[in-house]
């Protein structure tokens, strides 16, 4: 069973997914960040593969991508960093990035590498459903990778149903029309949107992303879903941290309400 499915099947408490840009703040920090996240009690780790032109991302993540690239991060270097992450990292791991570096690496070779190092799923926001179904789905499935799709407040019910049908693991519910890190907090409008989706009785659980930065917004978002995703707020912490491990552990515990 894919680690993602196992997690959602067994968990009652809200699930916390945290995004971290690979090779940030320093090129060699990737594994340190993963270990600290797990130590703090994170449920899913989403590793950002840096890209020169991340159009769905706001300033914070863009900048971290650029720093990581300038430090020499590449797709193959990332796989090198992750090659011994299992079994010490036991939580599900997702790679998030943009389609072009994956195309250049070779889609099949990329998926094979993901399986080798123990990646459970992919989030590629500029790979739309139609292209995925036509050219990628069979390859992803061959290597046991879940492709995580996004829905937004503007996504029609009909399309949400199509996305639900083709999704595995969970659906990434974007809380508002925005790039990452653009807004903070969860409004009542957004809570209404979460409830509307909940009422659709989809086969896949949802995690809410965008605008989640602290325990309060995490709890609010989790009321209408299985949990939530934190990205920009955590990347900001990475950029400013003096004691990386300690601050990461503390951050995760604060979100989960642990001491």
């Amino acid at each position: 069973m894919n680690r993602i499915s196992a997690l959602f099947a067994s968990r009652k408490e809200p699930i916390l997914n945290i995004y971290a840009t690979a090779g940030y703040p320093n090129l060699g920090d990737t594994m340190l960040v993963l270990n600290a996240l797990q130590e703090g009690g994170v449920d899913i780790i989403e590793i950002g593969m840096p890209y020169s032109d991340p159009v769905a991302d706001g300033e914070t993540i863009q900048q971290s991508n650029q720093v990581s690239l300038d430090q020499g991060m590449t797709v193959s270097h990332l796989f090198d960093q992750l090659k011994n992450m299992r079994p010490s990292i036991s939580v599900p791991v997702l790679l998030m990035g943009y389609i072009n570096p994956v195309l250049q690496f070779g889609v099949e070779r990329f998926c094979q590498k993901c399986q080798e190092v123990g990646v459970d799923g992919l989030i590629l926001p500029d790979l739309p459903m139609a292209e995925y179904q036509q050219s990628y789905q069979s390859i992803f499935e061959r290597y046991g990778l879940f492709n995580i799709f996004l829905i937004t407040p503007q996504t029609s019910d009909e399309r949400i149903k199509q996305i639900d049908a083709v999704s595995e693991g969970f659906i990434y519910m974007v809380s508002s029309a925005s790039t990452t890190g653009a807004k903070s907090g969860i409004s009542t409008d957004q809570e209404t949107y979460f409830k509307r989706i909940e009422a659709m009785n989809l086969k896949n659980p949802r995690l809410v992303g965008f605008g989640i930065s602290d325990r309060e917004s995490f709890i609010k978002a989790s009321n209408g879903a299985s949990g939530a995703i934190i990205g920009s707020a955590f990347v900001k912490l990475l950029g400013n941290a003096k004691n990386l491990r300690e601050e990461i552990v503390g951050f995760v515990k604060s979100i989960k309400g642990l001491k």
Partner: protein
Amino acid sequence: MIDAGISFHVSEKGYYGDFGGAFIPEMLYPNVEELRLHYLEYMMEPSFQKEFHFLLKDFVGRPTPLFKAERLSAKYNTQIYLKREDLCHTGAHKVNNTIGQILMAKRLGKHKIVAETGAGQHGVATATVCALMGMECIIYMGAIDIERQAPNVARMKMLGATVVAAQSGSKTLKDATNEAMRHWINHPVDTHYIIGSVVGPHPYPDMVAKFQSIISEEIKWQLQEKEGRDYPDYILACVGGGSNAAGAFYHYLDEPRTALIAAEAAGQGISSGHSAATTFLGKPGVLHGSKSLLMQTEDGQVIEPYSISAGLDYPGIGPLHAHLATSGRAKFFDITDEEALAAALECSMLEGIIPALETAHALAVFGKLGAKPNEISVVNLSGRGDKDLATYQKALKLND
């Protein structure tokens, strides 16, 4: 020259051969899908056509002349016509597309406009139609381009647009496009994105090509009047994203007697590491919503391009042009900064027309084309050079 089995028109799924598609985040899907479903229907409406052609005539000043460049013709010992898009209101062909798209935005019920701009020509053309229609207008422009195209920045501001500097990456057209897309992601409901070239997700490349196709539509009847035949032997245009070339080529895509000639910005030379010649240096990849040829590293990171011309300073190319290049339907030339500057000076001195730096790349092809004395060439004179005067003054030492 043309393989009968190859189509140069967009497929149902938005592809030109292997290139095209709509690689966009889900946040943009509803807008792009709405456009895809309706753009042809809206464009074909008699009321749309009537308004479009009325504005092209009385606001833009179309048809633009097809001018026989006698002294250039004599110099290169061939027959050269200039399609005078530089005489369009706002000084370049860009306005053909912005007129079309602002009418489209109205039909889509949008009342705010966002756009990217490189040289500032598309930004000015967008700000102009927004003023005309009373719509709010935000233009993203690379910080470097804001410096080198100052007159156009002032024009946009005078037309009521907000100009926002793109500070990321190379601070040029690519980054302005990223920022415009991000703005659209953040304002999907009330805003239409007027892309200025034949790039972006389907249906943008096809829609922009269709709005620009007025250029070759006019060339056909103008050439018929002047030469007794409606096709040239060569049609030449510069290509950054490729909108003026798409418009000039459009009605000749399936005309085997017309060679399509595209000029790309080689910058300091294609081997110099400072270039924007995508068909020479690019590989298939995805940028700004479509699969096309793209200048990129082995790792799939987009390379920051270089050209003296802000309008050609782009690491990609429209998917139609990628298809024209790889299928051999169009011949691409790499033109350096230096060659373009010389061609600009030559056109100014021989014909009394100061061309835009972008356009000068197309004019520079005559030194390499080898057109015969009786052959007819049409160059799309896509824009005028006023905006480039500061660059010309410096590079051509006009103040000495």
